[in-house]
């Protein structure tokens, strides 16, 4: 893909979960450029998760243009979109980020099981996937032996989120999407977590989309998008949801 292509390019996009119901998303235009740190602010239920599903290639818009990293998502089959996500996008969820039966290191290297591209990138920088996982965990202050060998269910929420961040960053994906990653952390930890995320995105040269409704976190971001301004479907959102559910 061309280096200069925007990371996200959306125009006249409309999306509904089912055909013939009112769209939950209606975005006239959105462009995010390479290396940007974007704070996407909006309350839950405003269609944010729909947008994330579209960016990840899990869902497709009913109409309009959606390009991620220069790739027209509507032109790909669902299998190709799944591969695309595996290769290019790192995800951090709000909570329950880790697979309970995998070790800390195995959780971090999980994307390499699904993407050869990311595995090769890892092996270009490090001797093994494990070494790279431990290096990333080290940057996140998580490489102590006692932490590495704990079952993931015994880690604190903050530790779990840092493992999730390492997983999102391994193999240097171009786009990192964090969906309310700090809402389960206390205030001190939030800023520390965001600092870590920024630093790692910088060194991996990744674009960061940070979704939150917490205004106190806005400060370090160079760009803030208000979701209700972005999504024109949001105004008639509430009554429609009631009608559906």
């Amino acid at each position, binding site marked *: 893909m061309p280096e200069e292509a925007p990371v996200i390019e959306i125009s006249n996009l409309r999306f509904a979960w089912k055909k013939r119901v009112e769209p939950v998303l209606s975005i006239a235009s959105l462009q995010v450029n390479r290396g940007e740190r974007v704070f996407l602010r909006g309350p839950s239920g405003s269609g944010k*998760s729909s947008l*994330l*599903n579209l960016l*990840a290639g*899990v*869902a497709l818009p009913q109409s309009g243009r959606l390009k991620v990293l220069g790739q027209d998502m509507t032109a790909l089959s*669902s*299998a190709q979109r*799944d*591969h695309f*996500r*595996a*290769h290019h996008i790192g*995800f951090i*969820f*709000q*909570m*329950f*980020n*880790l*697979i*309970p*039966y*995998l070790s800390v290191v*195995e959780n971090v290297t*999980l*994307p390499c*099981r*699904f*993407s050869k591209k990311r595995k090769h990138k890892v092996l270009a920088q490090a001797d093994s996937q494990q070494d790279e996982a431990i290096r990333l965990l080290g940057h996140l202050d998580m490489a102590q032996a006692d932490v590495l060998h704990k079952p993931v269910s015994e880690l604190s929420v903050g530790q779990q989120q840092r493992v999730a961040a390492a*997983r999102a960053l391994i193999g240097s994906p171009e786009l990192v999407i964090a*969906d309310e990653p700090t809402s389960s952390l206390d205030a001190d930890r939030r800023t520390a977590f965001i600092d870590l995320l920024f630093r790692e995105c910088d060194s991996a040269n990744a674009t960061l989309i940070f979704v939150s409704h917490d205004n106190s976190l806005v400060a370090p971001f160079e760009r803030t998008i208000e979701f209700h301004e972005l999504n024109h479907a949001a105004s008639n959102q509430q009554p429609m949801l009631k009608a559906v559910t």
Partner: protein
Amino acid sequence: MAIPGLAIKSFRNRKFTTGLTVLSIALSVMLLLGIEKIRQGAETGFTNTVSGTDLIVGARSSPTQLLLYSVFHIGNPTNNISWESYEEITANPQVKWAIPISLGDSHKGYRVVGTTTQFYENFRFAGGKHLQLEQGEWFGKIDDAAVGAEVADEFGYRTGDKIVIAHGGGDESFIVHTDKPFKVAGILKRTGTPVDRAVYVGLKSIDALHQDFQGGEHDHDPLVAHDEHGDSGEQGGLSAILLGLQSRSAAISVQRTINEHDHEPLTAIMPGVVLLEVWQMMGMVERLLMIVSGFVVAVGLFSMLIILMTSLNERRREMAILRSVGARPAHVFVLIMGEAVFLTLLAIVIGVAMVYGLMLLLQPWLESMYGLYVDISLPTITELTLLGIIAVCGFFVGLIPGIRIYRYALADGMTIRV
């Protein structure tokens, strides 16, 4: 690639509950297969019991009863056959050989069969095999006895040992002929039939024994004694006669002649026909057992379904995470589906191993206790079919949670439902 590794790790993480599920299915597989093995053993053992005998004659009774007491040593004759009838029947030119059998005594719980050398010469089993001696010889003298292989094993008898015979069957005989011990003249080779579980003595010896007990003369002609006692009560006379004919095709006419016998009411049966009838009767029981064990397998598979379904809500999150790192809905389906198939196959392997282990362990015991020879051989087509059906059922059981998680994966997308 990614999925088998994950499936194994996931399985290891829940090894206790999944282990129990596997065990319950494995036990049900063992039960099903074990019953099938025993059925086969019983059928072969059963049909091997007697062969080459064209007719069995006894006092008027049901054919099944006659077969059971004359060949299997189960139950007792209601009446005896008189010696005259024996002579009349054997006088028939169609009769090639006749084995007289007199029951009613026992040795430490085993039947004592009064007979003649005819038994040793003409009795055949398992498709025409003759009896053979392991040691010594068939009884000749009046105080000689030949013992079946199992009786010899049970009490460690060797030729020359003295054994004592009791009047009446079973273990609770109260009249023991301790004053007239028999000498073990020969030990028969194992046959895997009821022959192994009996002691054989001469007809004359039995009569002499009872004569003596009643204070009669030792040198009394036993055949005459038979007549006298045949009139006076239970002693004397014969319990059954096994007949071999000149030609098999004569069986029906000879059977009719015997059934229409004038002097006393007699029943003649063709053992092959009655064996089949009895087997079919037992076949009901065995089919019922198969059905029950089939249900046990179904319960085992159902418990696996329950385990998979209850884990599904928890694993829904896991699926969203896998989706986020690039797993396809098909991967997620295979992960759950594969687990069900893997657990079923594992259970089948363990179940089969347990069956063979148990057979190795119990084979000698089953044979000595029940005369049941369970053949330890490769699985038969029937067994493989049963196993195949279980595997297919496991596959279908896996489809249920598999399809559900596939739908979840499509509906949830990247959203983690809590």
